[in-house]
Every structure is written in structure tokens, then in C-alpha cells.
């Protein structure tokens, strides 16, 4: 039973079709009919036929994906003019009359026609030719480069990645003018045929990691993929672990820094989030801003982040364990005042904590999902429910409100949203253990957690490094951010040697 449940679903490939066997015919009408047949009667599929010309030709494109003005001026107009001016023009010379700077590719099979046209290329069929031509004229509506919303910072560039790959590559190129920068395209998803770019610096990258990424991306067997999160889950080697083994960022400076350190960045058409791999546990405590501020402040903030991770993971559990099993650990006066607060509270501390945590999770989810205009209503209700009424109604004690709200605030400290999710889920497991076996159970869980973290790998690299395996040299930039002049990054060394 469980075997079947856990078995990964195999995707059947019947949904995708193959046009390999379809050759471009010399009969223009036949080709057009074939295109109509494949793409169907869609309003955005445009087929413009010029049958009355000396050499009849037709043009096929998808409305909205191409630059129509350019199509008009540099393709249709020149071809028409050439035909009128030169009556002796041969069909195969026709295509050379176009005035586009892009590369024109001849295609013989429909296989090479359908995908390009769907990606925004213009296809020209010429009567009497057994090949069609695809001309790249892609332009579509894009959002401007704006400040990232999920990863904000005080000091640092205000640019964020957008949904268009081309813009994103530009943002990276502008930051790293290095000749060894590579963007390697892959197509994933049998239905969606989404473009992803595996980018790296040839001079810096760990070839082992690069080969691993390429292997995983090209072996990907999926139908549809819309966001880098889906890709992350599909090519992750530790699928069941709550800890992310990819770092997703929408900040070009973070991606550029990762590239320069020899990591691989996977970019994705249609989402501003790119994936950085291999990544380490400690890198989720490191924000890009750390390097822009003075090192002492940054080190301090990193320590704060680690503390808040521990708080968001273990504080409610510690509260439960200490108040229900280890009362001797609480200072006497605090114990008396906690006991006073608990007078008349009907539930055990565990249930109390569970109620408050659940209320908070509901509020958080509502806060993210609800339409903006009703946001204030939810926050008012939430503040009253959590802060005042639950205590006044005698459901919970005031101390647990502090514990839960501190936990909630701490969970937002991590610069990477996905990472705090791990602490958020494990918190509940830890609470159950604390309620049944006290601090003993918590210690057991923590040991298990450490073992798990040490066993994780990200693209074959140890996840918990540089702490375990311990690398002395890398401590300069792990838990603390020591002065930059101490840290000779790999990139820096190479440039110094070269010059």
C-alpha cells in the first residue's frame, strides 16, 4: 500500500507529439494547410499569404510574440519590393532579400517549425521550396525591472529579476563582464517546453557540479513546469527533507555573487526566481546585504539570524518542556508568575501552544492569500484574537502569547522564505516531542536533526559544510562575516595572479 503511495509517478509521453515525419512540401498550400492542422484555429495564430506575387509565399507567426512592425518593414516589404524590381528572382534567393539582422534558419521538418513559431519566430514558406525559414523576431510585453518584493534590503541594488530570461541574462552580464560566463539553454516539460538556462562561469565552476546539474536537468522527465520551485523539487536529491537544497533568489547581485564563487545558477523562463546550487545550510543565514555593510554589523546580524532560527524552531517546545517537565529550571520568581498566569487555564501547555500556533499559521496564510483591500480587517482581527481576547477569555495564558509571537517574528528573519518553512514545520514535531518526553525528547530530536543535516547533499556537495565537514579556511565567511580583506575569494585570487 505504502509502496504504491510513495512510488514516483512515471509520466507517459503520449501527450506530446512528434512532427519528425512531416517534411516541408514544395506546395505552399499544402504547407499552410499542415500548419493550420497542427496549430488549429486559434485566434492568435496568424498566417499571411501572398499568393498573387510572382513567387507566392506565406508567413506564419503567433500574434503578440513577435515584433509586428519589424515584420512589416524588414521582411514583407523587402521581399515584395525585390520581387517587383527583379522579375528574374529565383525562389531560393527570395529569403536573402529580407533585411533582418538575426540569423535565418532553413527548416525541412515541421518539427523545426512548430516549436520556433510557438516561441515567437516568424516562419516563411516559399512556393516551390522544400524548406521553410524561421526568423527570430521575438518581442513581447514584459514587466519593467523593479525592486524585488520577497527579498528586500536596505542597502544594495534595487533591481530584481523579472519573468523574461533575456532581461535576466542582461542583468547578470551587466554585473559580471567575464568572457567565461556561459548560459546553456535546456528545454524542459514535454507539454510546456519551457526554456531554462544553466549559467556558470567556465573559469570558476566546479565541473563535477556542472555535469551533475546538466545531467539532472536534461534527464528531467516531466510534462509541465512553471516555476523554479517545481524544478527544484524535481531535481532535488533529498526530496523528503524539509530543508531546501537550492537557494532561490530574485536578486541579480546574489546570483552574480554565486556565479563568481563557482556556483551554478539555473534561470527559468517565466519566473523572477533563479536557483543557486550547490548550496549549504549556512548560506541561508547569509544575506547579500551582509557584504555591503560593515563586517562587524554583518557578523552580529548573522548571529541574530541563527538565534532567531533556533527560536523559531524550538521556543514553543522549550516552553512546553520546561513548564510541564522541568519546573526546577525556571527561576523561582518567574515560575511563580507563570503559575499565576496559568491559574484557571483549562488546557495543558501543549494544547495551549498548539492553539496559538495554529491561530498564527491561519492568520499568516490569510495574510498572504487574501485580496489586498481586506488586509487591514484580517490584521485587526488577528491582533485582537491573538493579543487580547484569547487571554481574556481564559483560553491561553499571557506567557504563551509572548512565546508564539516571538516565534512568529523570528521565523521571518531568515533572508530566504523557503528556509524558514523548515523551522516552521519541524516546530510542531518538536512540540509533540517536548510534550511527551520533555527536554530529553527535544535533545533526541536535535541530534536527529543534526544527523540529517550532515547527511544531506546539494548537488553531491555536503550541505552542512563548512561546519561539518569542518573547513577552517571557510570559517571566515560562514557564521561570522569577517572582514573582506581577510577573505581572498577564489575569484579575487585568480585575477590577482593573472595581472
Amino acid at each position, binding site marked *: 500500500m505504502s*509502496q504504491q503511495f510513495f512510488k514516483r509517478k512515471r509520466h507517459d509521453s503520449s501527450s506530446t507529439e512528434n512532427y519528425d515525419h512531416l517534411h516541408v512540401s514544395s506546395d505552399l498550400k499544402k504547407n499552410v494547410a499542415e500548419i493550420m492542422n497542427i496549430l488549429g484555429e486559434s485566434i492568435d495564430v496568424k498566417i499571411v499569404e501572398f499568393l498573387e506575387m510572382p513567387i507566392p509565399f506565406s508567413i506564419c507567426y503567433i500574434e503578440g510574440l513577435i515584433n509586428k512592425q519589424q515584420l512589416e518593414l524588414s521582411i514583407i516589404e523587402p521581399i515584395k519590393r525585390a520581387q517587383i524590381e527583379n522579375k528574374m528572382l529565383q525562389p531560393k534567393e527570395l529569403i536573402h532579400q529580407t533585411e533582418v539582422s538575426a540569423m535565418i534558419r532553413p527548416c525541412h521538418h515541421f518539427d523545426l517549425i512548430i516549436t520556433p513559431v510557438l516561441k515567437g519566430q516568424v516562419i516563411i514558406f516559399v512556393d516551390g521550396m522544400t524548406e521553410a525559414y524561421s526568423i527570430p523576431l521575438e518581442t513581447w510585453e514584459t514587466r519593467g525591472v523593479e525592486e524585488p518584493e520577497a527579498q528586500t534590503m536596505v542597502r544594495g541594488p534595487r533591481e530584481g529579476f523579472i519573468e523574461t530570461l533575456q532581461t535576466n541574462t542582461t542583468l547578470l552580464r551587466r554585473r559580471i563582464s567575464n568572457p567565461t560566463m556561459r548560459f546553456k539553454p535546456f528545454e524542459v516539460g514535454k507539454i510546456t517546453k519551457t526554456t531554462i538556462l544553466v549559467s556558470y562561469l567556465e573559469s570558476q565552476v566546479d565541473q563535477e557540479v556542472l555535469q551533475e546539474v546538466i545531467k539532472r536537468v536534461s534527464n528531467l522527465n516531466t510534462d509541465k513546469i512553471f516555476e523554479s520551485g517545481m524544478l527544484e523539487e524535481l531535481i532535488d536529491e533529498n526530496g523528503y527533507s524539509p530543508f531546501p537544497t537550492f537557494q532561490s533568489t530574485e536578486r541579480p547581485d546574489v546570483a552574480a555573487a554565486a556565479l563568481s564563487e563557482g556556483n551554478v545558477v539555473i534561470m527559468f523562463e517565466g519566473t523572477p526566481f533563479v536557483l543557486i546550487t550547490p548550496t549549504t545550510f549556512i548560506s541561508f543565514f547569509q544575506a547579500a546585504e551582509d557584504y555591503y555593510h560593515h563586517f562587524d554589523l554583518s557578523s552580529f546580524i548573522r548571529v541574530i539570524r541563527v538565534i532567531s532560527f533556533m527560536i523559531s524552531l524550538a521556543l514553543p517546545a522549550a516552553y512546553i518542556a520546561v513548564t510541564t517537565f522541568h519546573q526546577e529550571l525556571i527561576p523561582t520568581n518567574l515560575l511563580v508568575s507563570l503559575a499565576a498566569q496559568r491559574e*484557571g487555564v483549562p488546557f495543558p501547555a501543549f494544547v495551549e501552544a498548539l492553539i496559538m500556533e495554529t491561530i498564527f499559521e491561519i492568520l499568516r496564510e490569510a495574510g498572504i492569500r487574501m485580496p489586498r483591500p481586506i488586509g487591514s480587517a484580517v490584521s485587526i482581527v488577528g491582533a485582537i484574537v491573538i493579543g487580547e481576547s484569547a487571554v*481574556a477569555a481564559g483560553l491561553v495564558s499571557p506567557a504563551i502569547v509572548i512565546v508564539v509571537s516571538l516565534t512568529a517574528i523570528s521565523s521571518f528573519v531568515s533572508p530566504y522564505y523557503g528556509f524558514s518553512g523548515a523551522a516552521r514545520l519541524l516546530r510542531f514535531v518538536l512540540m509533540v516531542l517536548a510534550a511527551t518526553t520533555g527536554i530529553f525528547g527535544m535533545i533526541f530530536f536535535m541530534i536527529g536533526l543534526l544527523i540529517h543535516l550532515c547527511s544531506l547533499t546539494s548537488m553531491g556537495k555536503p550541505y552542512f559544510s563548512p561546519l561539518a565537514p569542518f573547513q577552517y579556511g571557510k570559517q571566515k565567511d560562514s557564521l561570522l562575516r569577517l572582514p573582506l580583506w581577510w577573505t581572498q575569494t577564489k575569484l579575487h585570487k585568480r585575477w590577482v595572479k593573472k595581472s
Partner: protein
Amino acid sequence: MRRWNIVAVIISFSLILSGCAGRVELNELLIVSSIGVDYKKNKTIVHFQVVNPGGTAGGQGGGPSGGSGGSVYTYTVAGETLYDAVEKGRNILPRKLLFSHITSVIIGEKYARTKGIAPLFDFMERNHEVRDNLIMFVAKNSTAKSILSIYTPIFKNPGESLKNRVKLAATSTGISDGIKEKDVVRWRYGEFRDPVIQGVEIVKISDSQSNTSNLENINANNKTFRITGLAVFNKEKMVTWLNNDQTRGWSILNQRVKDIFILSHKCDSQKGNVGFLVKDVDSKTMVHVENGKLKYAVNVKGKAILQELTCAVDVGNPKSLIKMEKRVNEELASHIKSTVKKAQKEKTDVFGFGKILYNKYPDVWKRYKENWKEEFSDVELETNVSIKLETVGARVETIHEQK
């Protein structure tokens, strides 16, 4: 997959089987802040002073039932032994007792004199909740019950008040952190010395002190207790009290002093007093055998700060300062001597002189061991006190010196 199933089974079984054993919610507990022990008709009467959280936190608690009543209550249970009383207490106590936060154990003088302290310690050492750093007291001239029946002002918890009092009283008694349970156990069951326990007495006996209404009376002396000198035990049973000066002598000999206040009455043959705060007191006791007799020598070093001068002494003159130093030295030496004399009279080695002898001359100790109490009462003591006057404070001349 099979591995995961096994792990899941193990985890769920261990969680279910452990089943929250040992779990106690805070509102199922009675926090015991002090324990009192009295003797009555061959029975052990045990008083549990428990904290009433609602009463103590007074309004800051959030529960709808709020809190009311006094900050502490004292339950009294009679039993054969201490633990017997604890067990019998289950019949009258509303909740489970929590012993982890006991600050003090108070023994009635009668109990200490007739029954001795030994019956208390096995339970206190064996129970995992009772701490070994709780402070022990003997209720001087009264019962533990009467000490535990006082509501104290300022501190809502009398146990806490008592604990704090010990620290504050250190300038007069010299014992800065009290006599802990672990000290007493070590002395009582160790080979070399006899235990002492600090005394506590009620300042003034009045009828109204047992209820909270006395807190509304401005006269605070009605409802407080005083830390007194040490109760000396002959291993087992209490034999006598040391007075305040002797208590200081004890604490100097035992290196327990942080700061003590010395008031000298002799002020250069004039009427008046001179007061010093002596700090950084360090003492070292040495023993040597002279003509087959044991001779002990105590060297005391320290610094004095002039606190008060009510007679005309020329403080600016080094000679008079040296005289003052001498006064302090004499004063301290007399404390020490009087303490030792008292202890010798009772034949109780409360200073660990036996231990000093054992450390230096193990062979001699073997000889004296059998009859140490007698030998102890015969040893000679020599005191060398050298306190240096460090500062005369913010003023040089006394106001009496104006010409």
C-alpha cells in the same frame, strides 16, 4: 521504504508508550518555598510554606479567576519522619508539592535540641527535587511554625525575604551566603568537624502578624525576623548559641567573610565610637606541635574603611590612624578568641581544626582522633590580625574636631 516504516513504528511507539509520564502542568503544582520542622510529643511536625501564585503576582496574572488571598500559605502536617509528613500531607494539600524551589529549611529550636538534625537529611539528599543549596535556619527561642507564620512586607514571599536577609545581614554576621544544606551535611557526616546553622528569630511577637492585615500597619518591626548568631551542634544535637561577635569570629576563621562592620567603643579614652567596614578579609589557620601540645595560629588580613567617628581624633595624623588600625585588630582578635573559647567549652570543633591538623600531621591526627573533642578543648590559639586602614572616606577631619 521498509526502513521508513520501521522508523515510523519506533517513533510512534516510543511516543505513545512514554505517554507524557512525569508531565505536570504548572497549575497542578504547589510551589513550596520553605519547610519548617518542629518537635511535639515525639512527633515531627512539618510546615510547608507554599506560594499562592495568584496572590503573589497580585493582579498581573491574566487568568479569569484572577488571584486573591495571601501570597503564601503554611500547611502543617504531623508525622513520624519528614517524609512520613510529606506523604500524610497529601491528604490535606490541594496539589502536588514541588520541592525544587525551596529557599530555606527552618528547624525549631526544640527539635534541634531534642531530636537532632540527622533525621532530616536522608530525605533531602535522596529526593531529586530538593536542592542542596537551600539555606538552613534554626528558629531561636521559638518554633519553625511561628517563623513561617509571618507575612513580610516588601517581599511577598517570606522565604525569599529570609534568603535576602541573610545576604544583607552579612556585614554583621560575616556569613555572606548563609549556611547551606550541603555544608551542614558535609560537616555532620564528615570526620573532622561539627556543624553550625544560622539562627533566625522573630523581632517582636504580636498577635496580628499571621494575617495579611498586619501588612497595612506601618510598623514593620511587627512582622519581620532577624538573622542571629549561629546554633552550634555537637554533631547531632544543638548545644548552644554563638552571639553575634562569636558568629563573626566563626566566619573569619572559616573564610566566609566578604564585608563586616566593626564598631569599637574605645576611642582614645574619650567618649565616642569608631566604626569600620572591613573587607577582603582573608584568614589562614596553621597548626604546629609544641612540647606535645597543639598550638593553632590564625593570621587574618584585610582592609578597613573608616565609616564613622564620633570622637575627636586627628585623622590627618598617621599615628592616630595606626592606633585605629590597632583597635580594629584588637576587636577582631577578641571576636575570634571568644568564639574559640565558647566552642572549646562545648567541646565542639566547629572550625575544622581537626582537618587542619590532619592535613599537616596525619600521624598526629591518628593519635588524637579518638579523643579529639577533649583535645580540642585544650588547644591553644594565637591570633595575628593585621587589618590595614585603606581609606578614611570622603572626609578627613571629624566634625567634632573643629577648634
